[in-house]
């Protein structure tokens, strides 16, 4: 558990987190507009800001108590900065070695081994002897992530590590971070202002507004609120969890589980280990009976659990699928009235389009 209550004054800006408690497992995403204090909070949690006050405990260990602060160098954390912050006078290997050598009780040969394994894991094996000034943005972040992991942290902080990257590098690094989180079991705090990154990575979301934590909730709950700040750009979104199968005779692949099955037409290079599917509510229609003669592949039986009038003649309908996952549909108020929809009604959710994340 990471729990505390931190304050920090920085010129005009004031961070007042309010009491918070985060499980020390999985990926917690700090989400909010720029300037809301995400980075300030993360730096205070990492112990990088001397002006931080308040209390902070990690797994029962005291990290901050009033003005007293355990130095960042003694917190066993890893930190990945927005611009990687690699040491410019060293090669990629030198940067990794800087971290590996400072792990207590590590022998030089052990450190070399760990560097090789880690470089392989983050995909920078071929770049090890390059000066970091020659690396691309994505490569730099890979080295930065590897460097943070080599310090053998108990908590990994990532401060908008993808914001400076192009979409290709972004997608690759999202997959890498997701994989590392699952393989290492290392708890992560991840900052972003991009809803797609939240939906891709988050186990839980820490919503920040004007320097305080407005709410901490699991991703599924965060996505079940039609007024969620995550929906500011593209409207309500659902994230379905499941496994991807191999292609069938028609070239389609199945996503889901025993009780839920979606048919997907995917490019050949789609990541076979992807576990999340993103569905925009506006791409989901509802039918009270199973429609015939329709080109839409995915017609999922569902039960209406709630309906929210979002204004502007739109209604968000929250449906529960056969396996218990929730799917949001956005329909017009006119359709809602015409179909006489009600809570508890069994309907068919027609999914026009999905995006595989990863």
């Amino acid at each position, binding site marked *: 558990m990471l729990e505390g209550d931190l304050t920090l004054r920085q010129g005009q800006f004031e961070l007042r987190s309010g009491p918070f408690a985060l499980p020390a497992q999985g990926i917690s995403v700090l989400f909010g507009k720029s300037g809301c204090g995400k980075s300030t909070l993360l*730096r205070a949690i*990492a*112990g*990088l800001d001397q002006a931080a006050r308040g209390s902070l405990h990690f797994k029962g260990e005291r990290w901050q108590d009033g003005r007293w602060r355990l*130095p*960042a*160098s*003694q*917190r*066993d*954390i*890893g*930190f990945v*900065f927005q*611009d990687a*912050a*690699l*040491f*410019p*006078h060293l090669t990629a290997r030198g940067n990794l070695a*800087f*971290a590996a050598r*400072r*792990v*207590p009780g590590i022998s030089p040969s052990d450190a070399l081994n760990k560097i090789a394994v880690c470089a392989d894991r983050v995909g920078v094996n071929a770049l090890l002897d390059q000066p970091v*000034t020659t690396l691309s943005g994505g490569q730099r972040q890979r080295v930065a992530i590897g*460097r*943070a992991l080599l*310090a053998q*942290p108990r908590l990994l*902080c990532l401060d908008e590590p993808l914001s400076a990257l192009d979409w290709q590098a972004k997608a690759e690094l999202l997959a890498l971070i997701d994989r590392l989180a699952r393989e290492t079991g290392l708890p992560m705090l991840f900052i972003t202002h991009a809803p797609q990154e939240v939906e891709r990575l988050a186990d839980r979301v820490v919503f920040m507004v004007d320097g305080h934590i407005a709410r901490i909730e699991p991703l599924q709950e965060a996505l079940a609120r039609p007024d969620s700040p995550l929906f500011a750009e593209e409207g309500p979104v659902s994230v379905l969890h499941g496994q991807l199968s191999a292609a069938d005779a028609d070239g389609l692949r199945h996503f889901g589980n025993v009780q839920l099955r979606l048919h997907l037409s995917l490019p050949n290079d789609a990541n076979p280990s992807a576990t999340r599917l993103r569905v925009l509510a506006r791409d989901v229609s509802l039918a009270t009976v199973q429609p015939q003669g329709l080109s839409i592949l995915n017609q999922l039986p569902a039960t209406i659990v709630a309906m929210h009038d979002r204004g502007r003649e739109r209604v968000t309908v929250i449906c529960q699928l056969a396996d218990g996952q929730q799917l949001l549909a956005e329909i017009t108020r006119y359709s809602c009235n015409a179909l006489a929809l009600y809570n508890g009604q069994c309907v068919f959710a027609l999914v026009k389009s999905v995006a595989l994340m990863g």
Partner: protein
Amino acid sequence: MTSLTPSEWQAIWLTAKLAGLTTVILLILCAPLAWWLARSGSRLANPVAALVSLPLVLPPTVIGFYLLIVLGPQGAVGGTLEALGLHHLAFSFWGILIGSVIYSMPFTVQPLREAFAAIDLRLLDAAATLRAGALDRFFNLVLPLSRSGILTAVVITFAHTVGEFGVIAMLGGSLPGETRVVSIAIYDYTQALDYGAAHRLSFILLGFSFLTLLAFYSINRRVLRPLQLR
């Protein structure tokens, strides 16, 4: 250079010793001072910077005069030493060493301060999260990242001390092997109308200074500049 007399060799060696010790002492003193000036944001930073820079604008005779008072037999420092049964510091090597340290200090502090101020603080944060404590960060990150500034400080401090005259003339006089550095020797030869000897030593100083600066600019451009690219 067989034409150099033993006393001229002595002056050259004394000059090298004075400049070398001054440089070492100043690097040790000024590294923390420059860091504090560059990074503390303290309200005292500007007054202290002004104080340290005084030798840039004051006539060396003024510094030499005050040091003569303070370090001499009646002064606060010299008098105390006498009371302890030691010798005062006027007209001694240790006296001109103190004078050189004060006189050359701005030439060490300024390049170091600029180099330290240019370091990206996030690199230090990154090192802290990699278990590097304050001293570890200073020696393994700040110093290597500041090597261009450190080289500048070393070269300029050494060369500037070699070229020192006024403070030593006021404070040290011209005692062979003790305070008679090359610049003083040149002055003495000129006063004695021994232009041949003055020529020899002057030419040596001119050549040394030029070659030092030439080497410095070549190294700094070719080797160190690429490192500063981010």
